[in-house]
């Protein structure tokens, strides 16, 4: 077997030890973040998975039961209803937030004082807490003295019980959420629109492209990556519906507005069955992951 000259091996060793030292320095730089990431995300994630395999009480006592919690969940009508409610809520809110955010961004992407004021106004709701938002919308939606009820009474119509009607409660919470959350997608789309070079629009004008053709042929393809980010972010956020349902309806009427997170909360902190609650959160985690990844890979297959 041929042997390397001594100087070559020495040079190789020096290069290797240099690279190793560089790698060590790199690890030191990312170590603080990795520590926080592990402590606050990885450990709870795996702890939750481990917990979901136990029958565990909040105040002590646990017993390994394998996948029984999961089997129980798939037989639990209330849980299955909460999954359906959550998916319904996501279907109501994510497309609406994406399209309304895009529409507002397109309308307000101009350099005028009016547009700047409106951008601020539309974003303002995002800084409110869920308590304030739901209080405002309760005042709008409740049939007894609510804004809409008063308007309907004025024109001689009966008030609509938005929050106590099983058919209307989820759309009502969805509207509340869209009003609350519209700021983020609007801002993301605005940022993306401002990145589209002005020259492209000028070239399109010279190419006799009308407004609609410019929107579909230039603007939308130019911001498709942002649209993907908005959809994935909103899927992740809206699957975690909790505060609005907890404060506005407590999941009612008849669990018609019970989302998975509220179900999990009730199981864990009202029935103290944390193993079962952990299993429910793992299902939610899997659903969010699958939905976001599906969207991501579908978009990638389309060439985004």
């Amino acid at each position, binding site marked *: 077997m041929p042997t390397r000259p001594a100087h070559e091996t020495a040079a190789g060793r020096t290069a290797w030890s240099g690279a190793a030292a560089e790698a060590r320095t790199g690890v030191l730089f990312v170590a603080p973040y990795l520590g926080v990431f592990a402590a606050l995300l990885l450990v709870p994630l795996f702890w939750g998975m481990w917990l979901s395999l136990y029958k565990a009480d909040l105040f002590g006592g646990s017993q390994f039961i394998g996948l029984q919690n999961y089997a129980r969940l798939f037989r639990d009508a209330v849980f299955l209803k909460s999954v359906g409610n959550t998916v319904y809520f996501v279907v109501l809110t994510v497309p609406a937030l994406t399209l309304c955010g895009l529409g507002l961004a397109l309308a307000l992407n101009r350099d005028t004082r009016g547009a700047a004021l409106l951008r601020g106004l539309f974003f303002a709701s995002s800084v409110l807490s869920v308590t304030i938002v739901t209080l405002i919308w309760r005042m709008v939606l409740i049939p007894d003295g609510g804004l809409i009820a008063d308007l309907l009474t004025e024109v001689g119509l009966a008030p609509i019980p938005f929050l106590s009607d099983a058919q209307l409660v989820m759309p009502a919470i969805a509207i509340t959420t869209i009003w609350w959350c519209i700021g983020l997608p609007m801002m993301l789309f605005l940022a993306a629109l401002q990145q589209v*070079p002005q*020259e*492209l629009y*000028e*070239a*399109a*004008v*010279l*190419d*006799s*492209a*009308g407004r609609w*053709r410019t929107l579909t*042929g*230039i603007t939308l*393809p*130019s911001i*498709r990556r942002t649209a993907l980010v908005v959809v994935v972010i909103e899927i992740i956020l809206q699957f975690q519906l909790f505060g609005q349902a907890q404060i506005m309806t407590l999941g009612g009427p008849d669990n018609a507005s019970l989302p998975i997170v509220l179900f999990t909360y009730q199981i864990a902190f009202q029935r103290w069955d944390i193993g079962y609650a952990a299993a429910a959160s793992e299902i939610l985690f899997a659903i969010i992951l699958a939905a976001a990844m599906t969207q991501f890979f579908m978009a990638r297959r389309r060439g985004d």
Partner: protein
Amino acid sequence: MGGVALRGISKRFGNTRVLEELSLEIGSAEFLVVLGPSGCGKSTLLRAIAGLESIDAGVIEIDGERVDHLPPGKRGVAMVFQGYALYPHMTARANIAFGLRNVGLPSAEIERRIADVARLLEMGPLLDRLPAQLSGGQRQRVAIGRAMVKDPKVFMFDEPLSNLDAALRARMRHEIANLHRRIQATMIFVTHDQAEAMTLADRIVVMNQQRIEQVGTPEEIYDCPASVFVATFIGTPPMNVLSAARAAGDGVHQCVQLGDGTRIDTSVAKAVVPAAGTLRVGLRPESVGLCALEAGQSRGVVEFVEFLGDRTQVYVTLAGGDRIVALHGKAVPARRGESVGITFDAAAAHLFDAQGHNLRRVG
């Protein structure tokens, strides 16, 4: 192909004037280069003709038809932008076809035109690539193809070579010149690069501070600049412009005296020179010669010597304090810090009046 007429066009952005009472005739199939420093209004002029900027006053005609009220797409113009402005999500083919689809041309006709343009610009293999997969020169070619395929009356180029490296810039310059020769289209080309202007133009429009300083062929602009600005903007290195005093001469031509007492008998008719007011004399670096100390009309101290291969630029400070630059052959008779004799080609000297106008043009 269309001629372009601009009559008294003006444009303001708020309180800032960017074009002022500008009039110009561009002949059919002419290659006109608009040259000027940054902020002189040359790009605004181009954009106004294209319809990308509205004008506050004046008339723009293309092929005898008034177009300043028409949208850009209906003016019969096509533009190659500085950054090419290719649609990044479309292939080269789709980029070229976009404008044709928008005006409802049949697919077969679109394909035929794309094939013609691809053959002319030798870019057939590039047609199915995205702009990100093309080099700077290839993008440039696609951008030109996108303009050509519309068969416009006027082609416009807004500093299209400024993003390319020096070698590619020279090659693309030749390609554009060839293209103009082959298709004989009216072309308006905006640049701040005088080499591009001199090599490409049938005529050059030199702009400064929102006004046209001079319109002429490259030879006219170089040999007889209308003003001090044009004289110092065109030419590398620029013309030497020195303060001069009137001196007694042959009575027919104006004789002037430099700060160090050197007399220059210009060929400018004395009759056109105002009796009062400051005068400046202009001498191209190639009209300034270096020689042995005792053989010169004047003398100075060499400050810098820049060797350029085939020639040398020598910066000399005259006894009166004026600095001039001379173009010399490879062998320079003096080194930095040494004194050198200087000769002037008086017949080639220009005289500028107090307003900076070239008095040779008046004569």
